[in-house]
């Protein structure tokens, strides 16, 4: 058969993909860094881990410190406020005529004074929220003098006060009663007792209240520092437990696969049984069984329970790889060439198994964060003084209708963490696919 030069010209050039396929597989991190979502997820994960461990130094507020005068407040900046006496004996003010009037109205105290009614045995003071219908509202006090200092759980809103004289007219509201609607301004004051309790340095009768960028919770604790300390708990559980159980599972599976025979059979049967245990139920059961002494955070029992229940996944994975490699031609030929076991493990087993373990680690981490949050949410995780995102949500859910930020802040934190790790896992396994596809050709 004879060829013409034209025959060769007609041959199409090899498609670009095929050319690329022939090139050696690029390192994993290069593939990963080419993926935008992977880079974003990596940055978020790095920030989360960083804030969990360095956060308490950058934002050194004590997460257990209670700012009693700022319960459930929204975000605030640092402020200078006046220190006031806790029980000032206000002597009232004389009001000659006209309507019921307010002397001063802040969220610390509402001072009311009204003109005395001739012949009255006393006065009853009622308070209602301004938008709350036409009733009298809550009875606050019955007093003899024509003034009153209201300090009962005042919020930043409008109140309607009614003063009813007693003994001069029929019960209830009448023509002699006085009524006023007062809008409270936020108090820039703090009680002397609270200032002492919080150990704030008083300067010229004033103290500096620190900022609460995410507001405070229902016990007046700083949300930002609670979320940061919660991140510590979540990251600690989310990183240590998967690392431990994947390492344990890897060694277990490698042992089963390398030894083989009845040992392998028994070991994998045990793994099958552990897989059959209902995960959440046994997490809770183990946690109850291990008990928690006072003063412990409950982190250790949780990590231990997670390790005890979660290792079989990695064990199966590694065992499968070991069995596959043991039967492969290149391991056989390496063995014939006199390669030692150590060499085989280092040269063939580890490079094949490690990427797979990395992917399962990246999916195990969000799962562990999730589990920790769920358990802490139902009160079966960390013990209350230790903040955790799950227990923060649990506290927040009680006041979600009035102060939704207490639920939303930790919920967003959990979601971002889980999202970032999930996206990273996806990107990692996609990158691994690219590598395997290229490597196989």
């Amino acid at each position: 058969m004879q060829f013409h030069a034209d025959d060769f010209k007609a041959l199409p050039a090899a498609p670009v993909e095929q050319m690329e396929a022939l090139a050696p597989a690029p390192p994993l991190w290069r593939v990963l860094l080419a993926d935008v979502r992977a880079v974003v997820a990596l940055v978020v994960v790095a920030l989360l881990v960083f804030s969990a461990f360095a956060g308490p130094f950058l934002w050194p507020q004590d997460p257990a410190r209670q700012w009693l005068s700022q319960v459930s407040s929204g975000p605030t900046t640092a402020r200078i406020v006046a220190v006031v006496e806790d029980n000032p004996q206000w002597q009232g003010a004389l009001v000659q005529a006209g309507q019921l009037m307010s002397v001063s109205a802040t969220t610390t105290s509402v001072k009311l004074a009204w003109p005395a009614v001739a012949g009255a045995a006393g006065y009853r003071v009622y308070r209602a929220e301004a938008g709350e219908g036409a009733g009298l509202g809550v009875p606050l006090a019955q007093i003899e003098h024509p003034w009153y200092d209201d300090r009962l759980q005042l919020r930043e809103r409008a109140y309607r006060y009614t003063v009813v004289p007693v003994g001069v007219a029929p019960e209830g509201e009448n023509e002699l009663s006085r009524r006023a609607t007062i809008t409270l301004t936020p108090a820039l004051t703090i009680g002397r007792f609270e200032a002492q309790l919080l150990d704030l340095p008083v300067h010229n009768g004033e103290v500096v209240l620190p900022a609460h960028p995410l507001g405070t919770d229902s016990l007046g604790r700083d949300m930002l520092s609670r979320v940061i300390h919660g991140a510590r708990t979540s990251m600690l559980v989310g990183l240590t437990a998967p690392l431990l159980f994947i390492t344990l599972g890897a060694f277990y599976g490698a042992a089963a696969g390398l030894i083989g025979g009845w040992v392998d059979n028994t070991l994998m049967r045990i793994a099958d049984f552990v897989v059959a245990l209902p995960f959440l139920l046994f997490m809770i059961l183990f946690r109850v069984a291990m008990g928690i002494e006072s003063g412990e955070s409950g982190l250790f029992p949780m990590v231990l329970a997670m390790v005890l229940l979660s290792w079989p996944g990695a064990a199966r994975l590694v065992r499968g790889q070991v069995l596959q490699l043991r039967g492969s031609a290149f391991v056989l030929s390496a063995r014939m060439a006199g390669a030692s076991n150590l060499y085989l493990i280092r040269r063939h087993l580890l490079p094949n198994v490690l990427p797979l373990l990395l992917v399962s680690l990246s999916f195990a981490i969000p799962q562990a964060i999730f589990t920790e949050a769920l358990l802490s949410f139902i009160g079966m995780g960390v013990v209350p003084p230790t903040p955790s995102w799950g227990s923060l949500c649990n506290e927040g859910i009680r006041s979600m209708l009035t102060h939704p930020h207490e639920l939303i802040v930790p919920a967003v934190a959990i979601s971002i963490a889980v999202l970032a790790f999930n996206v990273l896992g996806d990107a990692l396994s996609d990158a691994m696919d690219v590598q395997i596809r290229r490597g196989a050709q």
Partner: protein
Amino acid sequence: MIAYILKRLAYGAITIWFIATATFFSMHAVPGDPFNEAKAASPQLRQNLMARYGLDKPVTEQYLIYLRNMLRGDFGISFTQENRQVNDIIREHFPVSAILGVAALLIAATGGIIGGAVAAHWHNRSPDRAMMIAVVLAISVPSFVIAALAQMAIVRANDWLGFPLLPVAGWGGISHVWVPALVLGLGTMAYLARLMRSSMLAVMQSDYVLTARAKGLSDWQIFRKHQLRNAMLPVVTELGPTIAAITTGGFVVELIFAIPGLGRYFVQAIQQLDYTVIMGTTVFYGAFLVLMVVLIDIAYGLIDPRIRLHGDGR
């Protein structure tokens, strides 16, 4: 086939025994004893209580009695609710959890299959992108947060409408089921949608779809007869494992929506350290899940003979 079924059943029985044993011994490792000062005021009273619940016998004997009772299907008497059988508690509360779970599974399967099919049909276009974002969100936001937000939304909607459109919590008519079931099924729905999407994408490139197109079938016919049916197969096989996820996920949803299901009861029992109820519900749930897995395995064995040949089928 019969040998396969018997083998699966025997394996299931051993697994249930393992669960029961693990439960028994972990409960016996609990520090302290279930009778606190308030209940057992005097040593005599404590002794009587111990004798009544059989706690004065050696552990091995207790274990044998426990296994024997369990074989008879008797889980004992509650520690905190006097004279209430654990069996009664399960009988009363499990149907509620089951209804919720089945509703959640139906919603998840329907939503997941439709969502995945839609995403695949408009692959790499806006419906696909929107669906994938929704999927990632549904996987990343914890169920208790979604439950709380859903509740908040119901409250606001009822306020705004001026009449109760949907009940905020509780259990009763069909209107109580929808929202909790949706919340419970959301994670599974997202997972199934993702699975359906990739399965559908694989099917769309298959030869038989090309043939159908060449025959001149309409898009809708191809979609319905060739793509949807075949793409659903791997999704249906995944339904088994999702039952476990939905059953255990029920705890939190039942807790938040105040639904008197077994899951909420279990959490309560744990908070009150009601040992018999904890053991009974754990073994019951465990046995239920194992039974489900075994049944599904057998069903697959019947449908697809290839699975049987692989021996364990796990």
